[in-house]
């Protein structure tokens, strides 16, 4: 593991990761993010050993097979894991199994980074709201696409670059330091609580105070039945049924023909 990447190699890989994790390449980046394959391929090209890179990557793929991220949380960030693990494996002539051992903790840390990105993105919201209020479409577009992309680049490129350039030992130290610390706890807590804002906004916008009982009904159904893990679609169906019954019972057309 005494051989390292050149500055350019490390930088190119870091840029690739930033492209994937910023999601700036459109929805289909999803599969670049969920799967190590494309990242492995890029690393292989950059390092000039496509074949070995693909073999190692295929082994990593098996670990992340079947991951899904409803609501945003992916249990690990395979692309980041791969961007770190494959170079290390190639340089150190490690077996695919060795690469997996590096990939797993890095993937975990990557998942925290990705969620940190959600948090940093909130800084883009203020200008966005301003442009929207002004009806300024150009500004709106820029604030939606530009700022978050810059944020992601500033977040991922230096980190990945440093990690690659100074090697794996540094990373694993950082990983274990951070994942047990207060930083992650605060991040988790803020992430866990911020959804409250969006929901409160929507409630305000719907604006019918007299219908609030249905909010509480739903909230406490979801709390009381938590153990049953009832599917979201079923809840939506219940919601629809309640909506229909509400309309039935408050209108006076109840005795019409079927």
């Amino acid at each position: 593991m005494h051989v390292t990447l050149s500055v350019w190699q490390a930088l190119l890989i870091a840029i690739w990761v930033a492209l994937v994790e910023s999601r700036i390449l459109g929805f289909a980046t999803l599969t670049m993010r969920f799967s190590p394959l494309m990242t492995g391929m890029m690393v292989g090209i950059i390092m000039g050993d496509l074949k070995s890179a693909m073999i190692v990557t295929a082994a990593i793929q098996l670990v992340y097979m079947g991951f899904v991220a409803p609501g945003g949380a992916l249990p690990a960030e395979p692309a980041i894991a791969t961007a770190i693990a494959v170079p290390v494996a190639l340089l150190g002539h490690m077996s695919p199994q060795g690469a997996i051992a590096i990939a797993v903790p890095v993937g975990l840390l990557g998942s925290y980074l990705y969620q940190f990105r959600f948090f940093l993105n909130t800084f883009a919201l203020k200008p966005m709201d301003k442009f929207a209020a002004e009806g300024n479409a150009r500004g709106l577009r820029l604030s939606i696409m530009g700022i978050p992309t810059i944020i992601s680049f500033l977040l991922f490129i230096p980190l990945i670059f440093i990690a690659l350039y100074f090697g794996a030992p540094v990373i694993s130290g950082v990983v274990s330091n951070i994942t047990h610390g207060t930083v992650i706890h605060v991040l988790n807590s803020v992430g866990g609580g911020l959804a409250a804002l969006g929901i409160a906004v929507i409630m305000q916008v719907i604006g019918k105070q007299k219908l609030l009982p249905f909010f509480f009904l739903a909230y406490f159904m979801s709390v009381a039945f938590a153990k049953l893990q009832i599917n979201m679609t079923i809840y939506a169906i219940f919601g629809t049924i309640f909506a229909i019954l509400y309309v039935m019972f408050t209108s006076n057309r109840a005795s019409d023909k079927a």
Partner: protein
Amino acid sequence: MSEINQAAQSDVESQTDEPKRIPQPDKITNKDLMKSWFGWWWANEVNHTFDRMLAPAFCFGLIPALKKLYKDHDELAKAFQRHLLFFNTQATWGGGTLTGVTISLEEARAKAMANGEQPISEDMINNTKVGLMGPLAGIGDSIDSGTVQYIFIAIFLPFAQKGNFLGALLPFLCFAIATFTYGYYFTKLGYSLGRAAAKEIMTGGRMAGIIDGLGVLGLYMMGILAGQYINIKSYFKFTINDKTFDIQQILNTILPGILPLTAVLLLYLYFQKQGLKITRGLLYLTGALILLSIFYII
């Protein structure tokens, strides 16, 4: 501070009986639908945040369509604003369909305003989005991320295992092309379904009932989302001479789920009193969460 509390005011306006007159909107073409679908597809998770989720991308996609519909500057601004609020769904099944549906409803609204008729209200547009986004997300995640994606990966994995780069490129290309294609199809489908529904609503004379019904559904889904997405619990425990007191456990015997609910209700009341000052709400909430979590109270 220029906050978007007009949203709340416009809401009131939309319920009075004197709708504002605006210029006639342009016709929405298939090309416009493609533009919007592509916009949503492209921006999709770029500006992902915890409190708006994917709303910015949704609005981004709608920009070209909204510009054709609302020649009136104020109405355009309000349309932008209303599509920047909390929104989360899966990209193709959810986002495609809802992009189509929303454009059709906005079109009906803009036309009615131009003709001086009673327009489809903002509420109705919001509640439709909010009511459908959850279930469509479930369907889409399960099919696109959970199944289609892994089918392609599984098919081409042996290439990768043999060191062939096609094992990486082909799954990506197949997934990108397949989802882009049927996502656009869902957009068109959503648009035509939405048009039919809008016509039905506007001629049926049952608007009030439908708005209420959608309000019920919207608030109901917000309750469910609050129960499932907001994750605030107390980590505060203290031990006095070996006896441990666990605050979350005590809260659970009083009322399970009390903390997330409190957070939502405080914000709701704040907006109720101070107008819809979202950025401030965000600052206060983040500040409170950081403060409480630094001391491991939550």
